[in-house]
């Protein structure tokens, strides 16, 4: 693959181990990641484009894709709003217990998704700590599409907070001082001066939360109720089809989700280079 690169640059290096380390890197990457992904990407070709489309264009599959993407977008928006508030409080304010609160933000990264799933499901069930009071007002979260939203919001929160914190920390206070001197109120300063300069980071964090939400499985399936065409997410439909040995159907949905991952990855790279230019 990069044999030319090796020959061109290899001889000028003082340090040893270039060929060995790069060869191992490429071998491992190809074997573990690239070939299996290729197996998925090439799969729909065995169906033909028409066959691929028949697998996707069923009401159940389309509904699951709509639910996964729609709720992930909503969850990313909620995470962006609260991520900004939390990052603002953690970076700008001083209060006791701040470090612990900051460490807790990573809980959705560290807690296995199945554990989060059964905990959220029990909390929001009609007899749960949060579900019971809500049930009195006729609001149901668990076993409805709103359960999907709760789980996706949970899983996505660290992304927005962690992308915003460093940018917020490096933001110079001089611009805010200038705005205040020119007579802006504090809220005007935050809305017109701080928020615009945070926009790239905010969008990056939200895009990461969205990408994670779209693909998320473990924390969602327990709380969602998994009613076909209502609260059934796309990853679960892949699992269901695999259990019925419908490999073609599973692969078709898998390809759509993988394509979405590629698009998100490109979008994130674009966002990050935009953010880098802005700083």
């Amino acid at each position, binding site marked *: 693959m990069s044999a030319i690169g090796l020959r061109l640059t290899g001889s000028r290096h003082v340090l040893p181990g270039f060929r060995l380390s790069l060869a191992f890197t490429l071998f491992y990457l190809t074997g573990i990641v690239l070939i299996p992904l290729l197996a998925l990407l090439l799969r729909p070709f065995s169906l033909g484009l028409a066959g691929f489309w028949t697998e996707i264009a069923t009401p159940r599959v389309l509904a699951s894709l709509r639910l996964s993407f729609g709720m992930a977008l909503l969850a990313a928006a909620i995470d962006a709003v609260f991520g900004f508030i939390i990052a603002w409080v953690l970076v700008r*304010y001083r209060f006791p217990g701040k470090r612990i609160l900051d460490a807790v933000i990573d809980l959705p990264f560290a807690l296995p998704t*199945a554990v989060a799933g059964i905990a959220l499901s029990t909390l929001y069930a009609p007899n749960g700590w949060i579900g019971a009071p809500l049930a009195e007002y006729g609001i149901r979260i668990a076993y409805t599409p709103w359960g999907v939203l709760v789980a996706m919001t949970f899983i996505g929160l660290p992304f927005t907070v962690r992308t915003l914190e460093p940018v917020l920390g490096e933001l110079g206070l001089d611009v805010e001082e200038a705005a205040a001197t020119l007579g802006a109120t504090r809220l005007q300063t935050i809305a017109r001066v701080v928020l615009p300069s945070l926009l790239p980071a905010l969008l990056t964090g939200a895009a990461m939360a969205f990408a994670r939400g779209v693909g998320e499985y473990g924390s969602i399936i327990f709380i969602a109720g998994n009613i076909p065409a209502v609260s059934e997410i796309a990853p679960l439909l892949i699992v269901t089809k695999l259990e019925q040995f419908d490999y073609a159907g599973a692969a078709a949905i898998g390809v759509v989700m993988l394509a979405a991952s590629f698009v998100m990855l490109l979008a994130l790279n674009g966002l990050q280079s935009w953010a880098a230019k802005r700083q």
Partner: protein
Amino acid sequence: MSGFSQHHAGRRPTDDPLWLKLLLGTLAIAFIAVLLLLPLLLVFKEAFAQGAGAFWAAITEADALAAVRLSLTAAAIAVPLNTLFGIAAAWSIAKFDFPGKTFLVTLIDLPFSVSPVVSGLIYVLVFGLQGWLGPWTSSHDIHILFALPGIVLATIFVTFPFVARELIPLMSDQGRDEEEAAATLGASGLATFLRVTLPNIKWGLLYSVLLCNARALGEFGAVSVVSGHIRGQTDTMPLHVELLYNNYDYVGAFAVSALLALLALLTLVLKSLLEWRFADELAAAHRH
């Protein structure tokens, strides 16, 4: 953390008014408490809902112990392999120049943006009976799917980038001068790595191995697709949680969950300690 001093008398123009501080502070703390802390609290409460005896019985039950063993085995294979890969990738990418580097880094990051279920699906498409290698492996009596190798592969895939993505920026920032000096003075490659590079990256390495291990033990979606769910044999801890929960054994499900939650908390504590104590020796993204 910005050195934001409140010692001056009166409010500075960049300080938020008190009402705003109270409002945003309350919102932030309430959101974290409800969304993140309440589920954690519930796990431990439910695990001990029928007392410590029931909890102990649930986690020492034979299938639960088999699940713990399987999870530990899978992590014990996946984490060292990904660590070795991370070091090799970071060594080649950070210490040498070659075309296509940025693209390679993007490919290494790829598994993080793939849905866990899709991560499992790809191995089914390779090793399943209708897959590329499936007919060959089954005719040679090699079991990949619904056995340990499949679980290990799925675990490797989902934890693939952890070590590499921490070490690549860290080792790039540190440059090559020290290693080149050592090599010029006649140190072998291994000696250069062990005596010069490793001391510089040890905390970053530990940090990333910690996160890699937590994810390896906790992975659910990818492993669920390839495991086959054979109770006592191919059920990892998270899969065992699902099985117990779906069988209405809530104490059992939350007892095993409590073990996993403890592991998550331990990971968070160690991670935070590393971030506070060795911030300068971690990749810039983790310096708070």
